[in-house]
């Protein structure tokens, strides 16, 4: 640990942005928003009674797999207090969603593929009326054989869930000659593993609210990890132009990957489109469990071989992941599992295949690690079994094989930076050794078994196998005030705080002195998903790029004023001074006015 940091604000333990509102109970989650008070001047509705938000509810499929012959909504529409009932044919744009592949309708279009599938949307004055209306909707199904597990889905005569079949995607990674290498292996472990569905269980059930402003823009508050994706999806569903939809990320009570998919944004948008009245949709916990993505369950076959010293030689994996009715992040999960299935170990001969399979279960999507944790269960079990067979210490076998600087991964990537696995194992060693020494002698209850274990895993941050861009904008006003605009959703992990630390570091101001506009598609530009541990690094670099550009014009102007080259200038106290001579300085407000008068820009966009 360095005692004296070269940074002024980065690395400092500061109070996170927005936390004061949270501890006072003032932070507004979507269920808390008072639409009547909110932007009241924007509301085009003259009749005040129309300002009370309507409650939205969705009728979900009662079947795992069926064709829809007909939906009769007339009785539901006739119930007093029902403002609207909508089905797929009321969707004006393209009724398909999905961040990687588009296969999920907002409202079922002729077919249901799981019991979570929404069939009709109701907008009503109260929740009670909405629930009554759902019961009055009649859906006539033509049942199809449900396909509830991957084996059934992959059977040759299996009913087809999507037109393209029951296989969404296959990822195969091959390096060297695995089969040949197994022949020379001293020890081989061959096993099958299964992992289960996991619910994210964020504490805030999914929610959203919205209204139509005086310009006719649909304003949607969302509990989301990716407001700019929501925006793209809602404009697509409704066939609207970009400026006709505005997504604002409300306080978001956890996501863990699940709030990367749309939850209620599409329903809010559809109701606003047709009704032009404020609406709100708050899932019950039950609906949140039923309707949102889960962690992909896996069925994994793995064969790992080593020489007599425990050095890994070859690995073959054939694995299947159940994406349920829709793709969501399934393709990324399949790719990641093939990439990460080796574990953080050097293996010369690699053959990894992952098949992502549709079934009639509730769809699976992103959840912390995108398949890498499921893989860790398998590859770490393999390491322990291998060590046991070889009579080796489980820590030792990991040290022998673990990645270090210069290691080549299964995909052929040479790891050059930030490979901390060996150091990590060395840090664990003393505790592991101590525990190993003590565990047999420690007295314990006869009903409790004790063991010692360790596990390694690796994980690549950022989008999976695709480009990974982010953008940001920073502006200085003529009084020297600084505002940072970022589309990066802060869901409590602290990105807004960190991004202001980065900008503040460059401009020599305190992070809390920077105004922020976050996750509002009217004012911010796309920063991608808050997922895969990417925002600090990727949006952080976009903020750095924008701030460097602003800093550069300030320095140019400062250099003109102070008659010193730019390289001799420093930022401090809302201004620029000559290094080593703080008396010789010029403040931001003067610089900003000069730049403005000369027609220079004080607003800079950053990219990464």
């Amino acid at each position, binding site marked *: 640990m360095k005692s004296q940091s070269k940074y002024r604000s980065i690395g400092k333990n500061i109070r996170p942005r927005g*936390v004061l509102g949270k501890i*006072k109970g*003032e932070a507004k989650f979507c*269920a808390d928003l008072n639409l009547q008070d909110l932007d009241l001047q924007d509301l085009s509705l003259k009749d005040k009674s129309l300002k009370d938000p309507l409650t939205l509810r969705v009728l979900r499929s009662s079947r795992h797999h069926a064709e829809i012959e007909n939906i009769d909504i007339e009785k539901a529409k006739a119930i007093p207090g029902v403002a609207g009932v909508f089905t797929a044919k009321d969707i004006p744009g393209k009724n398909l969603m999905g961040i990687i592949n588009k296969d999920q309708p907002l409202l079922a279009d002729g077919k249901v593929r799981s019991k979570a599938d929404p069939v009709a949307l109701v907008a009503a004055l109260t929740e009670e009326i909405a629930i009554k209306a759902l019961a009055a909707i009649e859906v006539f199904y033509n049942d199809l054989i449900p396909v509830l597990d991957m084996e059934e889905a992959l059977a040759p005569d299996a009913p087809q869930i999507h037109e393209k079949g029951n296989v969404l995607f296959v990822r195969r990674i091959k390096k060297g000659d695995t089969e040949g290498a197994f022949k020379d292996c001293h020890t081989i472990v061959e096993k099958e593993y299964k992992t289960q569905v996991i619910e994210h*269980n*964020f504490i805030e*059930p999914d929610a959203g609210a919205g209204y139509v402003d005086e310009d006719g823009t649909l304003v949607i508050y969302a509990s989301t990890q990716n407001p700019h994706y929501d925006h793209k999806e809602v404009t697509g569903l409704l066939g609207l132009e970009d400026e006709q939809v505005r997504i604002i990320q409300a306080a*978001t009570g956890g996501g*863990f990957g699940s709030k990367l998919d749309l939850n209620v944004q599409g329903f809010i948008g559809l109701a606003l489109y047709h009704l032009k009245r404020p609406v709100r949709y708050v899932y019950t916990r039950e609906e949140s469990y039923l309707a949102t993505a889960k962690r992909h369950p896996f069925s994994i076959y793995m064969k790992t071989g080593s020489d007599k010293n425990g050095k890994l030689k070859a690995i073959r994996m054939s694995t299947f992941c159940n994406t349920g009715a829709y793709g969501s992040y399934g393709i990324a999960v399949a790719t990641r599992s093939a990439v990460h299935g080796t574990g953080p170990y050097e293996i010369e001969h690699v053959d990894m295949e992952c098949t992502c399979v549709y079934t009639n279960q509730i769809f699976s999507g992103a959840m912390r690690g995108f398949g890498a944790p499921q893989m860790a269960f398998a590859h770490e079990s393999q390491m322990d079994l291998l060590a046991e067979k070889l009579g080796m210490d489980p820590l030792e076998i990991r040290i022998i094989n673990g990645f270090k600087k210069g290691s080549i991964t299964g995909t052929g990537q040479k790891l050059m930076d930030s490979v901390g696995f060996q150091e990590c194992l060395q840090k664990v060693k003393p505790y592991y050794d101590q525990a190993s020494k003590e565990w047999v002698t420690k007295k314990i209850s006869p009903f409790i078994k004790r063991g010692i274990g360790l596990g390694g895993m690796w994980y690549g941050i950022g989008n999976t196998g695709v480009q990974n861009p982010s953008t940001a904008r920073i502006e200085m006003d003529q009084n020297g005030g600084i505002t940072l605009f970022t589309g990066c959703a802060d869901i*409590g992990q602290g990105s807004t705080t960190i991004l202001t630390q980065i900008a503040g570091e460059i401009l020599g101001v305190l992070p809390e002195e920077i105004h922020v506009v976050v996750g509002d598609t009217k004012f911010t530009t796309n920063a991608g998903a808050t997922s895969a541990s990417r925002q600090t690094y990727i949006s952080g670099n976009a903020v750095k790029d924008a701030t460097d550009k602003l800093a550069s014009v300030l320095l140019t102007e400062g250099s003109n004023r102070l008659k010193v080259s730019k390289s001799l200038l420093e930022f401090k106290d809302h201004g620029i001074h000559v290094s080593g001579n703080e008396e010789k300085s010029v403040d931001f407000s003067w610089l900003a006015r000069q730049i403005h008068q000369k027609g220079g820009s004080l607003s800079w966009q950053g990219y990464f």
Partner: protein
Amino acid sequence: MVHIEFTINGKEKALDIPADITALELIRSLLGLKGTKEGCGIGECGACTINVDGMAINSCLMLAAQLDGTSVLTVEGLATENSLAPVQEKFMENHGVQCGFCTSGILMSSHALLAENPDPNDEEISKAIAGNLCRCTGYQQIFTSVREAAVLTGQLTQQKGEKGNE
């Protein structure tokens, strides 16, 4: 409808309310105090925790009518005009808050604990917040926050006592 009289965050209320609504519905919908959250509605998550006569209660499991004659504290009543409550101060300082949705409930459980037991050990803290799920922090920062809030509460009580003796 039933008639109830109670105090909430120091304010007296006399209301006629439907007999079948929960304390949570009363607080959020009728009184508009949105700091108390609904995470599950079945007493599992603790996000709706309030203090009733000093006890931490899941407001989703209590009928509003049962509040008659009680004194209620919600998260909005923790801070005074000039200062935050010790639990608020320390949760903020020690990163006991991330997404913030469980925060109101955990603050109220912690506050009730410290009112009853000014010097809790870890086991007692654990028991007090056992009914509150937090999905973000992993609880370590929450334990630190409660421990430090206990110390701060003790210091404040002592200061008050000294002032009182002057």
